């Protein structure tokens, strides 16, 4: 890619201007909205087991999201962030990876985490900030992380994970691990300086990283076109940085799978960083703190409903005889029951012990932190009613 362009530049004697029209990037689609394949499309590698696993994970996440939004409305959890309409992006891309590849998410990639095997109990423990949460209850709901599953813990500040992915992939390359890093982010986060730093450095160092942009049309209330960017989305930026780039239909499981499979091969076998821009739509609000009726129309949402990634996949699977309406209904009920049971269980698990407050600030608590904790405990002992979460077990 990064040829020594300085010496290959053609010389012209009249001004030539280039703009967005100079490069137009098409969108890969394999599965049409009606649930049938485009004829002659290049197919990803897949078998029934893989597609069923992708489907079941998407179904699980959709049901989980629904139930947890309801739980937030009931005041049982403080916050939630759904991925409705974008399940194909995170699930089908994760399905193209090796389980040893690192995943760095933004915060709407619960699908990738579920695909890796994060259990419904693990989801619930994080959402309820209880003592079984791997993150020790320190972060807001949906900020998952799991070292065992190679899923880096989510951080709220946008875009910070993108250059980190470049660095992580550099280490993977140097250690000859044969693994890569996939980094998810939204088209809004791609406005951050971190995005540009990440792509440029990946291009310079030739590292096995897959930048996966979920272009879902909105950053909270800000629409992508014209307000987030003036150009043709995110993909042309990849070309500008000398990175292999593709745009895919993010609501098409097969297109996402195909693009990510090829991306992984380029990353791992050729140390080529890759940018995938997946076009989709955030069917849900940004989070439970947000009401999209304030900034977009019902008609616009309806226009995207017909492109729904899960419906589209189910249509195809039904045609293949891999699924029927009863299966879908039964599966939905099963997942719902599983989620509700896990929710009730997680609610009963106590908050982390107060001693956890000072752990992990450093590898070991400092003397000053220990002193601060002891002072705090003495204070809680004096006013136990004011701190009901922790006063019952201070020792």
């Amino acid at each position, binding site marked *: 890619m990064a040829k020594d362009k300085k010496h290959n530049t053609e010389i012209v004697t009249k001004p030539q201007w280039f703009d967005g029209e100079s490069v137009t990037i098409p969108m890969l689609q394999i599965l049409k909205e009606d649930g049938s394949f485009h004829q002659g499309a290049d197919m990803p590698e897949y078998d029934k087991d893989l597609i069923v696993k992708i489907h079941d994970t998407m179904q699980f996440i959709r049901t989980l999201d629904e139930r947890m939004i309801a739980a937030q409305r009931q005041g049982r959890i403080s916050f939630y962030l759904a991925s409705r309409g974008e399940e194909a992006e995170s699930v089908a891309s994760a399905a193209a990876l090796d389980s040893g590849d690192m995943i760095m998410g933004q915060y709407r990639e619960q699908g990738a985490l579920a695909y890796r095997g994060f259990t419904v109990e693990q989801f619930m423990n994080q959402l309820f900030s209880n003592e079984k949460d791997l993150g020790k*209850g320190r972060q807001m709901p949906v900020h998952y992380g799991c070292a065992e599953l190679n899923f880096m813990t989510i951080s709220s500040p946008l875009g910070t994970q993108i250059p980190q992915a470049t660095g992580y992939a550099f280490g993977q390359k140097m250690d000859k691990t044969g693994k890569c890093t996939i980094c998810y982010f939204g088209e809004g986060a791609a406005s951050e300086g971190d995005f540009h730093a990440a792509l440029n450095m990946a291009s310079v160092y030739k590292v096995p990283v897959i930048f996966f942009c979920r272009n879902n049309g909105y950053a909270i*209330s800000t629409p992508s076109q014209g307000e987030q960017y003036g150009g043709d989305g995110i993909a042309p930026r990849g070309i500008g940085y000398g990175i292999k780039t593709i745009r895919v239909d993010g609501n098409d499981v097969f297109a996402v799978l195909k693009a990510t499979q090829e991306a992984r091969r380029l990353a791992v076998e050729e140390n080529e960083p890759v940018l995938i821009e997946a076009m989709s739509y955030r069917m849900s609000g940004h989070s439970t703190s947000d009401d999209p009726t304030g*900034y977009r129309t019902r008609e616009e949402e309806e226009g995207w409903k017909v492109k729904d990634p899960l419906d589209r996949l189910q249509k195809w699977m039904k045609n293949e005889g891999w699924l029927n309406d009863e299966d879908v209904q039964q599966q939905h009920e099963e997942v719902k029951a599983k989620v509700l049971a896990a929710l009730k269980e997680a609610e009963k698990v106590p908050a*982390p012990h107060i001693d956890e407050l000072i752990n992990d600030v450093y590898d070991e608590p400092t003397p000053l932190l220990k002193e601060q904790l002891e002072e705090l405990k003495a204070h809680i002992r004096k006013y136990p009613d004011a701190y009901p*979460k922790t006063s019952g077990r201070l020792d």
Partner: protein
Amino acid sequence: MAKMNLLQAINSALDLAMAKHDNVYSFGEDTGGFGGVFRATSGLTEKYGKHRNFNTPLVEQGIIGFANGLASQGSYAVAEIQFGDYIFPAFDQIVNESAKFRYRSGNEFNVGGLTIRTPYGGGIAGGHYHSQSPEAYFAHTPGMKIVTPRNPYEAKGLLLSAIFDPNPVLFMEPKRLYRASTGDVPEEEYTIPLGKADVVKEGTDITVLAWGAQMEVTEKAVEKAEQDGVSCEVIDLRTILPWDVETVTQSVLKTGRLVISQEAPITGGFASEIAATVQDKCFLYLESPIARVCGIDVPYPLCHEKEYMADHLKIYEAITRSMNY
């Protein structure tokens, strides 16, 4: 007079500032027609158009860099950073650019028209990244002014001062009080001077000092201490940089005792700066060590938020300890 909450008071200040001068601009992430995630800029696009109140792309360093440029051109740039926790990509623009623009150019150029509005502080189940109080990072930066209001009346008067102050101002809004704090606010324009602390309540035994959202907690602690017969003088610092040394030291010379409370972690916090200056200027008048009631030295935690916070019970205990020293 009208009954307003803190958000409405801020909205009113922005409205009046934009009506007063055509070159006052308000912008930030989601702050356009939608009015911002907290709705502080509601209605401004309808009233002044999308070229005066608008959305920016999602890039904090860009927002403040853009605002610096706009202010250097002579306009009033009122930039919102959606949460104080997200201000750090703009740290370079603020610390190296906003704060030094005038000084480095020998006053050839300045960004006096810059005001950065940002919600800060905890108590809203916001975890690490929707709870921090980052004032101390910026208080270490000569050239910036840092202001934080405690209620709607203060918010409007201080913000109007901040917008038209000939220096760049970081205006930190206590988000926990956005809707919780209400009060009578004049509908017309008025200002509250920057750099001047407010003696909220006079007293003789001990000075209790705080700023922003911590004022509400402090007043609750003081109420409890007064039931024990302790006469507290309560001061709202209002402007963190440059801070009102005179008002604070005069009070401590009178009471001989000082408790300072901040939400941010104790180490390297602005309470420490105040304590150092006060012990220097009031050493022989002090009856007890200056107490700091602050967050502890850990990242702001979600599940132990209540335990972490410098709440009224902790401040009350500090007042009692100081009195019994």
